[in-house]
């Protein structure tokens, strides 16, 4: 599965990356790797507003977000 690496990027870049991927795919599954709670929360809000399912899995100091539609 494709993993977008948004680690180390400040807002709003992780959300912009996710938004682009959502618009590019239309539907399907992809993952985003982030390293801040802010990015996790912001992407979660975006996914919900776009009606994508999202789950966050902690990995050490990072979070692997899986988005599905």
């Amino acid at each position: 599965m494709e993993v977008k690496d948004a680690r180390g990027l400040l807002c709003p870049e992780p959300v912009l990356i996710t938004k682009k991927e959502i618009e590019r795919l239309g539907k399907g599954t992809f993952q985003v790797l982030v390293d801040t709670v802010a990015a996790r929360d912001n992407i979660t809000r975006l996914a919900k507003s776009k009606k994508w399912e999202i789950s966050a899995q902690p990995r050490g100091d990072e979070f692997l977000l899986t988005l599905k539609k």
Partner: protein
Amino acid sequence: MKRNVLIVITGAIVAVMALALVKLGNPQNMGICIACFLRDTAGGLGLHRAAVVQYIRPEIIGLVLGAFITSVFTKEYRSLGGSSTFTRFVLGFFVMIGLLVFLGCPLRMILRIAAGDLNAVVGLVGLIAGVLIGIVFLRRGFSLGRAVPQNKSGGYFFPLLMLGLLVLLLAKPAYIFFSTEGPGSMHAPVAIALAAGLIFGILAQRTRLCLIGGIRDFVIFGDLYLLYGFLAILVTALVGSLALGSFHLGLQGQPIAHSDGLWNFLGMALGGFGSTLLGGCPLRQLVSASEGNSDSAVTVLGLLAGAAFAHNFGLAASAKGVTAAGQIAVLIGFAVIILVGFLNIKGVSVRQGVSASGSQGC
């Protein structure tokens, strides 16, 4: 939904604290202003010699310590750095010039609007224009690049610096400046200001309150979350100002403000533009620095340096208006930030298909 409630409550508490701090001695319409208070702190340290704006503001110290402690407690503290650090310093420098030509950060701008200062409405229009220009760059792929994990101790120096400032504020050694007149001489008691800062820091860390981010997220994603916080500040401060009788609608004679519309607009536009490229307003930079981001810590140093230059070279505005030097500095600021914008488009290519095991670093 719960998050929206928290940020609205935060906004209301911030507004009440700002009004209370003014009642207890802070300058009018300046209960809390990150730009003004960093400027006063720079003055307190003698980095500039404008005798009327020299005071190490405990609100800033409290804010940083509150945000730091909260981030450690919630395990959000991350020692990060290395994302165009010096570029951020330069952006911070010119953001401060813009804000001091307007006379306030986005937070004070809202407090000024709530007290009837229509110059701040002009500032808001400028701020929105600045954020929109910033968004054009973001949409074209502007990025200052990735921050990478640093030695864990790296993020501790910023809160330690604030503890040092607190010692200087309390010990009052001869080489620390305390204004005896002007806005710098007006302040709430240290303990109360420090406590208000702490509460603000905790709330700002939890909610990520930021007006620049609010406008940006609304324009790009239609997300109102951060704007709710500022709406709450506006409404609460407006009701408070009316109740306290400190509401005076108009352009002229507003406290610590000038009525030069063009430069109120351009100053705030510069601040908004630079802050959008930085990822947040001065408040957000302080909170992010407290959470261990050393790029944001350097941005705060850029803000401090900008404040020092603004007053040493007569760039900052005053109630009398904006100086010619200040106008030139704003125009130079636009040129520099536009250059930064163009030079950092597609600064980072997002790596595709990284192994999900997640290797550290870049």
